[in-house]
């Protein structure tokens, strides 16, 4: 039987190859200087969803993303690889959200998406590196969660998941439905497909459609699979106090550029236990280890 799979994905600035202009004077990210990309570990998650779909014919993959209207590109990227449809959650009041408000908004969207068997997302996004959104969504929806996943198998209403842990991996079993966050060490995402990219290249959200010439609008109307859903606060019936800035207890005061450099060097005698113990205590006191 087919599975209903929701993939959580985020459009992020490409922080992997940052140049000097990556940060603005005020310490915020200079998004204009960094290309917007599919968050890498979300691609690993999408691949897991596609493998589940390969193994369970009849499965559907719906991509859910929250961000600027241009995040619709994320849905198209999923369609090009074998995804079925997508929801772009975009609305001005949702902006400026921390992980708490983000997970609330996404959980609200998921509640409006109907039945599902499994939610997969990347472990974390490269712009914030928090790894909190997936687990928080699971909590809000009252679902079990498995993190650091490397592969997912589903049979008899249960998921068997191999998860990466320190010095190895463990295999866990979990009932459906559940939330899984996928680690970057999982299989890389498959390439876009030549047929699908031609089929879905004109897939658009309503706001993107409005900007198209009339003949392309007619094409979208004639081909329902080209419609990408675009939801806002109203569609997900969100509590205004729990979204965006009001819903975000995290306040960023400043961001500083940290440049690592060696300041001083000290030699200690490796044979003298007291000296070693002193070093460890010092490092713990400075919160460098422990």
């Amino acid at each position, binding site marked *: 039987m087919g599975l209903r799979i929701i993939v959580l994905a985020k459009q992020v600035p490409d922080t992997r190859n940052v140049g000097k202009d990556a940060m603005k004077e005020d310490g915020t990210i200079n998004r204009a200087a960094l290309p917007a990309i599919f968050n890498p570990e979300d691609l690993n998650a999408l691949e897991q969803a596609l493998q589940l779909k390969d193994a369970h014919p009849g499965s559907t993959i719906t991509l859910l993303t929250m961000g600027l209207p241009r995040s619709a590109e994320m849905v198209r990227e999923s369609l090009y690889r074998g995804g079925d449809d997508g929801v772009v959650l975009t609305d001005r009041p949702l902006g400026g959200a921390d992980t708490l408000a983000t997970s609330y908004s996404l959980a609200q969207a998921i509640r409006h998406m109907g039945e599902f068997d499994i939610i997969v997302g990347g472990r974390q996004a490269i712009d914030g590196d928090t790894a909190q959104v997936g687990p928080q969504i699971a909590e809000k929806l009252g679902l079990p969660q498995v993190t650091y996943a490397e592969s997912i198998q589903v049979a008899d209403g249960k998921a068997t998941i191999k998860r990466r842990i320190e010095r190895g991996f463990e295999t866990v079993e979990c009932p459906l439905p559940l939330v899984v966050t996928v680690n970057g060490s999982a299989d890389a995402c498959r390439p876009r*497909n030549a047929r699908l990219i*031609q089929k879905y*290249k004109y897939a658009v959200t309503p706001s993107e459609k409005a900007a198209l010439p009339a003949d392309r609008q007619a094409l979208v109307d004639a081909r329902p699979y080209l419609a990408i859903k675009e939801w806002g606060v109203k569609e997900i019936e969100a509590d205004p106090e729990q979204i965006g800035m009001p819903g975000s207890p995290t306040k960023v005061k400043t961001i500083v550029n940290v440049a690592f450099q060696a300041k001083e060097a000290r030699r200690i005698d490796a044979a003298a236990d007291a000296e070693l113990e002193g070093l460890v205590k010092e490092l713990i006191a400075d919160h460098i280890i422990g």
Partner: protein
Amino acid sequence: MANFYTDNKALQYHLRHPLMKQIVALRERDYTQSEKFDYAPLDFEDAMDSYERVLDIIGEVCGDIIAPNAKDVDLEGPHHENGRVRYAKGTEVNLKALNQAGLMGITLPRQYGGLNMSSIPYIMAADMVSRADAGFVNVWGLQDCAETINEFASEDQKQRFLPRTCKGETLAMDLTEPDAGSDLQSVMLKATQDEDGTWRLNGVKRFITNGDGDISLVLARSEEGTRDGRGLSMFIYDKRDGGMTVRRIEDKMGIHGSPTCELVFKNAKAELCGDRKLGLIKYVMSLMNGARLGIAAQSVGVSEAAYQEAIAYARSREQFGKAIINFPAVSEMIANIKAKLDASRTLLYECTRFVDMYKSLEAISRERTLAPEERKTMKAYNRLADAFTPLAKGMTSEFCNQNAYDCVQIHGGSGFMRDYACERIYRDARITSIYEGTTQLQVVAAIRHVTTGTYLNQIKEYAAREYSEAVAPMRAKLEAMTALYEETFAKVQAVEDPEYITFHARRLVEMLGHIIMGYLLIGDASNEPDLFMDSAKVYVNMGEAEVARHARFIGNFNPADQAAYMRQ
């Protein structure tokens, strides 16, 4: 995060050629398929947009997957296990990625699951895949055999075999035998019919690229008692039916990723493809022309790889306090590599456009009667494709060898070590001027068009085109080169001995090749001076000297000296 399409402006330039409008319209039958197929283009712009997007995918797969695997595939090679081939691990990964990307059956019609693209993006894909891994391109590129099935097999056969190709099953063309290499008329593998009409194959094939492929086209002797090409037919062999085993995999100098097999057929069931007795005369010629264009693409891809490796090393390697690229001796080598690369590529895509025009019109002619004007166009392009295919294969493969040689030279002692990709490129390049007909055999195929004037007429056509003011000095040189060629050819003809033409054939073909590539490059430089002006200058200088060298050799040659070359 490399992308071999987006990083290559020359490919993007060649995709925008004005003739594409006609080529794509023919291939898409004037854009009538979008009702039936959700991935068919609506119009020319839509089709070109799709071409670019698909090339972008191929570029990404090449840059991110195939190229990084190339070193390990070269080291591991394919495995021979229980009469079968098991690919190197990286080869499997590459195939899986290309299949997931839907890049099999690029040129096949949509009704069989193909992408119905013209040859241009297919050859561009081959160009990029070759740059990534020259051995792997053979495994993937043999999908071209499906074109022969599409052209000549029955509708029932097409429906059974083509969708399988589009879903990723690999192909092989089984022509060569121990005693039938360049001389395919000597093929001995026997095809006999059971009483119920089933064909059975018995015999040995050798040097078969991807010999253990899922579907093979086998050239076999169906007419007992015959000894020449007229007794040969083409068969489709389906590996699922059994009866064929791989006796060995050759241990080769290069292209290790491509399994070269010796095959033994024992009562293997097969199906006749097309008509009896036309195997060599018609179908192999079609297969070969496709394969030769493929090798030209492979040569260009390998030249590109050589150029990229050479320039990267020359920029990073410092000697005497500066990067070696700053030494004139090194930068001149790189300029020559680049000029030969750009010349090869412009010839390759010119040839591909000719093939495209001719093939599309020919396919249409099987659906309806062509108008007289269309028929004339088809014949003209057929002739040009016939002339340019051996020229492109011959010239680009020789250049690719020269470029690989210079690439190693630029690396100095390090280039002789296995640490750098140039060593693999050098070994991989070597086969390009040998298989699918040696350079010497390309000259044999080309000489007809030397004597009938196909090349010269086309040169006259190029000469009459408009070019930018900036290329005027090069144009003048090309005109002088053409005059020198005509004068030289007249001297050869004056001897009135076909053997004498054969003797000078390679020199004559090369002279024409230099002139043709020179004209194509000044055209490119007129359109995109930033991309091609330097190469045009370097190439025309080189071509001018080469043409003069051959002219001098022929002009001063005493026909009586021919014997000195024959006596060994």
